[in-house]
Structure formats: C-alpha cells, structure tokens
C-alpha cells in the first residue's frame, strides 16, 4: 500500500474511531437507561442522537482550570497523550482484507506494547494534578496496568501460537473457514478469549476493574482536577481503549472480518468486523452497569493468583495442541 493510501486509510480510521467513541457514549447512556428503567438521553435530536455533539460543545465552553500548585506542563500534556497513545494502536489493526495502515510483521506485539504505554500519561496526570485523590488513582492505575499487562500478553499468545505469526492479518487468515479460535480447537481458545477480554477491561479501567477512577472513593481519580475538554479527552481515550480492545478481541478470536458473504464482498467483511466489535462493546456496558467494583488488593490478587497461572497454562496447552498437530 502506498504512503498516500495508508495516510487516507489512517485518516478515515481515526475519524471513524472518534465517531464511534462519541456515539459510544450515546450508545452506553441509552443502554444504561434501559437497564435502569429510564429513557436515557432524549432531548437533543431524534432519540437523543445529537447528544454527543452537545456534550462536546458544552465541554469546549467550560473554563480550563489549572490548579495553582500543579505541574502545568505535564498537566496539559497528559490528556492529549492518552488519546494519542490509544489511537496509535489503530495503525496496525486491519479493518478488512488488506485494509490496514501498516501491516507490521510484529503487529500484535506493537499493538499491545503501545497500548500499555497509557499507564504513563495517566500517571503523569495523577502526579501533575498535585491532588491526593489523583495521586491515589494514578498509583492504582500504574499497579493495575502493569499487572494486567502480563495475563493480557499470555492470552494474546494463544492465537499467535496457533497461527504462527504476530501479524494480525495472518492470524485472521488462519481462522478462515470458520475455525475461529474462540471455538476451534475447543478449550484454550475460549478461555484465552475470556482472559483477553477481562484483562482488556482492566486495561481500559472499566467496571468491575475501574479502580483508578473509583468515583465513590477517589471522587474521579486521576481526572479530578481536569475541566472542560481536557476532562473530556480522558473519556474519549477510555472509550477508544474499549473499542480497540473489542476490535482486537474480534480480530484475534472471533475470526475478524469473516462472516456470511464476506468472501464474495470484502466490504461486507468490514461490516462484520464492526458488528462483532460493537457486540463486544455492548457486552462491556452490560458488565459495567451490572457489577460493583473490586477493591484494588482483590484486583491484584485476582490477577497474580488466578489470571497469570491461567495464562501460563493456556500458553502451554496451546503449544501442546500445535505440537500434536491439532491446529
């Protein structure tokens, strides 16, 4: 793919992702409203569809406050950096057959590596705010991000071992013929899918793993001192992270763009991928509006005592399956 083509595709991908993040908020608010027996947003536009635009306009009009003793440089830098880091993952994720900005040979490794950098801007925000709640939130976030990186990688190693490649499009191609890793071969793939998805929730700070934000304890965690659009950027990053986690899970375990009719019409594959992503996205909301939150030490115990051993066992068992020639 030429540089220009990649540029255009990247532009489209980023804008689609931003739109998804914006209307993801609408989707979630409607979803939550239904769960809580209330209508959700209804006022702005038909069935409240223009609510994200109104929200963004409101956020942009807010006064941009900086605490007196804050480290202003870091304080201003952190919110855009969170969005930037999250968007960088999209450089290597394919959106259909051949539709990828940079089809790196180590694409999955790049995605997971750049995704884990998000700990840094969050920690920057918490430290620069010079607020005790923000500091507690940032410490929790760093601990959680580093800990959940391990099982996330172990779970992502299963499709890599099956497909024998770090290139995401290779992994999707290896699942062709409806041999999706979530179900075929039965066993490790399904567990790895669940593990990958749960760890992604933890990475994206979603309930039941939203300890860094923890609004009932830490008020708003790292974003406590932010106002206006800078506050909004944290939410954009959070939704982007959630979308990308869903996208990666769909690519690695749910056959990517494969679906009825996708081999005749490649554009249908993109639609299928989007549908799978949004389905997982909705599942995240379902979990969020159902569960309470774990305590931070319980979360760490869950990671080191349950998730990491499970991940190691998954890597071993998938390797055995490959050795036996099942895959």
């Amino acid at each position, binding site marked *: 793919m030429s540089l220009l083509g990649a540029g255009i595709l990247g532009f489209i991908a980023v804008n689609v992702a931003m739109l998804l993040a914006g209307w993801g908020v609408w989707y979630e608010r409607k979803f939550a409203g239904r769960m*809580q027996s209330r209508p959700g947003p209804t006022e702005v536009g038909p069935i409240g569809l223009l609510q994200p635009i109104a929200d963004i306009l409101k956020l942009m009009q807010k006064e941009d406050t900086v605490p007196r003793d804050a480290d202003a440089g870091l304080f201003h830098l952190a919110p855009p950096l969170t969005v930037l880091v999250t968007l960088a993952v999209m450089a290597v994720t394919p959106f259909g057959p051949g539709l990828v900005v940079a089809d790196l040979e180590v694409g999955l490794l790049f995605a997971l590596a750049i995704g884990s950098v998000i700990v840094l801007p969050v920690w920057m925000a918490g430290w620069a705010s010079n607020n005790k*709640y923000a500091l507690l939130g940032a410490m929790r976030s760093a601990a959680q991000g580093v800990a959940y990186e391990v099982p996330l990688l172990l779970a992502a190693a299963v499709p890599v071992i099956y497909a024998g490649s770090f290139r995401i499009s290779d992994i999707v191609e290896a699942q062709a013929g409806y041999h999706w890793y979530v179900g075929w071969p039965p066993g490790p793939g399904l567990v790895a899918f669940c593990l990958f998805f749960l760890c992604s929730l933890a990475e994206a700070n979603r*309930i039941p793993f*939203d300890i860094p934000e923890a609004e*009932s304890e830490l008020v708003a965690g790292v974003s406590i001192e932010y106002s206006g659009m800078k506050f909004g950027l944290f939410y954009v990053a959070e939704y982007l992270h959630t979308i990308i986690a869903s996208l990666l899970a769909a690519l690695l375990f749910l056959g990517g763009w494969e679906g009825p009719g996708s081999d005749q019409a490649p554009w249908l594959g993109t639609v299928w991928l989007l549908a799978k992503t949004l389905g997982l996205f909705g599942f995240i909301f379902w979990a*969020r509006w159902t569960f309470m939150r774990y305590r931070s030490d319980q979360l760490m115990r869950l990671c080191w005592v349950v998730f990491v051993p499970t991940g190691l066992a998954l890597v071993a068992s998938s390797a055995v399956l490959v050795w036996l020639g099942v895959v």
Partner: protein
Amino acid sequence: MALARWSGMPALGDVPVQIDVDPYMDIDAYDAEGDLMVLNLGPQHPSTHGVFRVKLYLDGEVCIKAVPYLGYLHRGVEKLCEKLTYANVIPIVDKNDYVAPMTSEWGLVAGFEKLIGVEPTPRAKVMRTILGELQRCASHLLWIGTFTLDMGGAIGGGATVFMHTFREREAILDVFAELTGCRFHYNHFTVGGQRHDVPAGWGAMVKAVCDLLEARTEEYESYLTDNTVFKARTVGVGVIDRQLCLEHGLGGPIGRASGVDFDLRRDGDDYGAYGTVDWKVHTHTDGDCYARYLVRLNELRTSIAIVRQLIDGIPEGPICSLKQVKLPGAVKPKAKASMAYAAIETPRGELGTWVMANSERKLMPHPYRCKLRPPSLHAVSLLPYICPGNNVSDIVVTLGSLDPIMGEVDR
C-alpha cells in the same frame, strides 16, 4: 519512619496489615517524620452521605487513624425546641432524619406525649405503626441503593441498583403524599394522634405497594445476595463486635447485625401496635457489612408483613385524643412530670427524646429543654474503632453500611 506492619504475602494473605486499633493514638508520636498522608474524606465527597468529614491518616492506602469531624449540618434544632411551642417543634424534626421523617416525628411526639400524659387514640396507634413500617421500607430501600452506589460508583452497577430501589421508594412516598399531601416533610404526627385521616382507597393503595415491594425485594435478593463482587466487597469488611456495639449504645440494624438482640419495638415501652401483630426480630452474628445488608433486607420483609397484618384492621374512632391540635400553643404540659424520656425504633436504631417541661412558668407552652438521641451519631462514633487497618475503599463501604444521616447526627 513509621510503617504499617505487613504480614505474609499481600497477594495471598487474608489479613494484609495488622494495626493496633487505638482511636486515641497520638499520631505525632507515631509518625514523627510526617510520612503519613492526611486525607480529608469530605465534607464534599460523593460518598460521605451529606457533609460528614473524616480525617484519615494513610500509609499507602491503609488507614492508620481516623478522626471524624461533625457539625457541618448543625442547625440548632434542640435550641429551637426551647423557643417553639410543642406543636411547632414537630415539623422541624422532619429535617433531622430526612430519609425517614415519619419515624423522626414519631420519636419526638412520643417524648411529648409521655411528658404531657396523653395517650394516642387506638386508631392513631395503628396508623402510626403502618406509617412507621412503610417509612422503614423506604429508608432501607434507599440504603440498599446508596450502599451499592458506594461500592459500584455513580456510573456503574451500583447506580443500577440505586435507580431501581429509588423507583420503589417513590411508590411509598406516593402513599404518604396521598395521606399527608407531602412527599417528604409530612408534619403529620401531633401530640395525641395525627393530623390527617385516611383518605378513601388508601388501604388498597398500601396493599398494592406491599405487593410490589415483596416482588422487588426478591429481585434485589437474587441480584445482590449471591453476587460475587458484592460479597467480595462486604463479607468480613468493617466488622463491629458485639461488645463495641454495647459500649457505644448501638441498637438498630447495626447492633442486630453484630448479635445484639435488641429492638425497641419489642423490648422498649409499649408503643404503636407492635404487640398485636406477629413479627420477629432479625439478628446476625457476623457484624460485617454483609450481615448488616442481610439484617436490613429481612427487616424490609418483616415491615411489609406488619403493614399487611394491620392495614385491614384500622380501628374506627378519632385520630387525635386532643381537641385543639391545630392551634400552636394549645398543648400545655400538666404538672404530672417535669421531664420524660421516650424512645422508638427508627430504621437506624434507637431515637430517643428527652424533654423537660418549663415548670416555673407553666403557661409557657414550650419545652424548657429538649435533647434528642439520634442513632446515627452513635453509629458514626464507631468509625475511629473500625477504620484503622482498612483500605480507603473499605472505609467508604463501611461508612455506607452504617447508614448515617448527617441531619440527625448534627441536628
């Protein structure tokens, strides 16, 4: 450098930190170098149930010492009682326990009646019991909602429970509004009885609410009681032992969850119509947040059962044993008793009213001194004993499980 002592593997151990709980510990001697972080939880904090403030000395996220500060909602209610007539005092105590104004009024009126020597009419007694139990349901429903909110956040699963319990509470408030015209600050109780008689069709309305509540209580039970995350956050958290409850005069759901088998509806002065109905007191022995949840959930069911038994048999007759209830100042204390103490069981525990008549100038129809004994004050006074050694997250949950209403703590 003073640090909490870690024992064993923090990731594996059940008790990560051991701290000697001493609420009067001199923090400057313990932490001479100032390494601890002081966190002012409140008075502006989403989980402090109003304007409560607790100063936490934190080692990492573990609390070493907790100092509660009260008085942010002090309105001088007790002083006001000395300047207002007996009838005028009643509406202002609505705002004390603003989650359960009916029982708040009842506690005050019970004290006044004992002082003046007036007995409510049989009709008023049954009506009061029904209202008191409905108010208990409303209060416990709100508690379940805010408690899950404390551990699940305003944007999460906790909010889902909160919205649902709030919806059912609204049905109870509609019943109250039908009777008194107000959703919240009723001014319904008077010395000797009550102000408003039952409107037509009210009994059917109450029964419909009881049906609704019974079904929905099952729903909450199925949602929360075996919920893994809910149990992980509540079982073994904020344990209060029986002795501490007794030392601090804690009855109510908190005491009963810690094994104090005491309920003023059964063990106190004979008030209301509790003697005529079949009900039982629920206790638990664990004393943790989960036990408090179970006790309150069972009390919700018991209250519905009590209302069901009474709603069809409200005796006919006058609603008030005094004639001029509506005129301020009409109530004058007799010289029978110069002071009296009466207590009732509110949703939070023992609400006592100690009131002293103005014996020197008998024509002055206001109390000489009125002292309220709010249950929430005693609950909050436990915090320095149960917070040390806990994580900030657990402190928020523990505070929520005590169900403090700052209006009645500060008065």
